[in-house]
């Protein structure tokens, strides 16, 4: 770990209280992500991925531990991260009353970027995702894949140092998802973005990430798969996927063992 990781979770726990009962979503969660890294967080449903994302975005306060994102506490200094963390959601979350170009410009509008500049940047990124012809189309006039491309353009238009992709391809069919994954990876490479993919798809994690963090219940890193190193040593994405599956299997047995105790 370097001195200035982009993201650092140190002994983070998050407990929710509901109807008098407490539920631990994350327990002693620690990991760091270095500048320029492309990391995947993978784990089964309910393993705390979404809670970790909410904590990282500063939407929730940790019950214990410390989180630093781009050198600030994302919860306490919520607005300090304005425009610095881009997120691509599972569903496109386009505003239906805005055209594609106005949707791309939305994040820049929040940042009070001048209209001429935001329109220029919006058109540049729409063109980059291959949708310049559809700049004036409304979301309902676009297919699911096209809408997700618009949402990717919206994220890149902000030029954030950190990118988060939360199950970004899981709502798309396999062919569209594969095409979009490849395009996104090349954009991340070109722009040298630090990126965190949150996914439950082992294949996706193996293909996208240089490093994979395998989460187990309750919300902690059980193992780490260094995909980039494996590929550099002559391994394949299939080998990486097999390694992740093996880690998840042991994570499952560890979790059930812990629950049985």
């Amino acid at each position, binding site marked *: 770990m370097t001195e200035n990781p982009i993201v650092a979770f140190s002994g983070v726990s998050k407990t929710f209280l509901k109807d008098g009962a407490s539920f631990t979503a994350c327990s002693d969660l620690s990991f760091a992500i270095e500048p320029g890294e492309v990391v995947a967080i993978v784990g089964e449903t309910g393993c705390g991925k979404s809670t970790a994302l909410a904590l990282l975005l500063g939407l929730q306060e940790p019950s214990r531990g410390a989180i630093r994102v781009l050198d600030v506490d994302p919860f306490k200094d919520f607005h300090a991260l304005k*425009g610095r963390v881009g997120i691509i959601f599972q569903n496109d979350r386009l505003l239906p009353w805005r055209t594609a170009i106005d949707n791309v410009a939305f994040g820049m509008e929040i940042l009070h970027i001048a209209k001429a500049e935001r329109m220029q940047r919006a058109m540049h990124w729409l063109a980059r995702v291959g949708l310049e012809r559809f700049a004036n189309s409304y979301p309902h006039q676009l*297919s699911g894949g096209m809408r997700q491309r618009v949402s990717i353009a919206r994220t890149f238009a902000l030029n954030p140092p950190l990118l988060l992709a939360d199950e970004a391809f899981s709502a798309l069919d396999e062919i569209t998802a594969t095409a979009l994954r490849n395009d996104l990876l090349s954009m991340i490479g070109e722009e040298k973005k630090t990126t965190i993919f949150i996914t439950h798809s082992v294949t996706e994690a193996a293909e996208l990430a240089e490093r994979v963090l395998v989460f187990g219940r309750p919300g902690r890193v059980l193992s780490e798969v260094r995909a980039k190193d494996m590929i550099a040593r002559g391994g394949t994405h299939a080998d990486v996927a097999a390694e992740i599956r093996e880690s998840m299997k042991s994570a499952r047995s560890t979790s059930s063992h812990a629950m049985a105790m």
Partner: protein
Amino acid sequence: MHGKIADSTLGQRAGPSLWARLTAHRPAVIDLVAVAALWQLSTYYFSPAIVPPIQDIGDAIWKIFSQWDNLVSLLATSLRVVAGLSISFVLGAALGVVMGLFGGVRTYARPLLHMIQGVPALSWVVFAVIWFAQVEIRIAFILIIGTLPAFALYIDSAVKSVNLDLIHLGQALRANRLQILTKVIVPAIVPEIMSAWTVNLGNAVRVAVIAELIGSTTGVGFQLLQAQAVFDMAGAVAWTLSLVAVLFVYQGIISLVESRLLAWRPRSEVV
């Protein structure tokens, strides 16, 4: 490849032709002709004092639109409706948004608004006469109290049903509360705002006429009272029809605004 285009309406949508628009109103025209024919038929069986001939009603309508004093009455009611509705909308929308955003306010405001809605317009007229000396203030009060609850309740429900994903998007982009309100919530509730205007317009016209019955010296309500005093049925019908015509003009304006503001909606959602 970027996937197929999901909707054949992609790009500029061509509006319906003039002929198509006219034929869309055919049922209304047929209704109007049928009612007029029945009315004219009735004139053979009833006294002209009870069912005046269409010719007399036509003459009375001509008098309304050709004589300045009469036109002032029609304009007065029309302007009172617009002014009252506008004030009511601003207050009702503000209350509706606050109710939609803050559950505590909603809990206490909803029963109160339903209670106000249950009070007959005539009761408000009586209260207004006792409370306010100025006629215009009376009419404005009755109009506002009669239409504000519907605006507030419509907008409250609309705010509550805004897609949470869109609000979360605003939060993730770290928009402040004002930005989330103006850039996400308000545009999202425009369809419900337009529905509230459509519903409240007819309501406001009815309430305005009732409000003008007492103390007013202009307006359609006042003119109806005058017609009743001299048993002028043709005049009463003419004033009523003129007001309905004004209502249709307002509804047309609302439809026009609606089609502009909601141009983004898929055709299938546009009623």
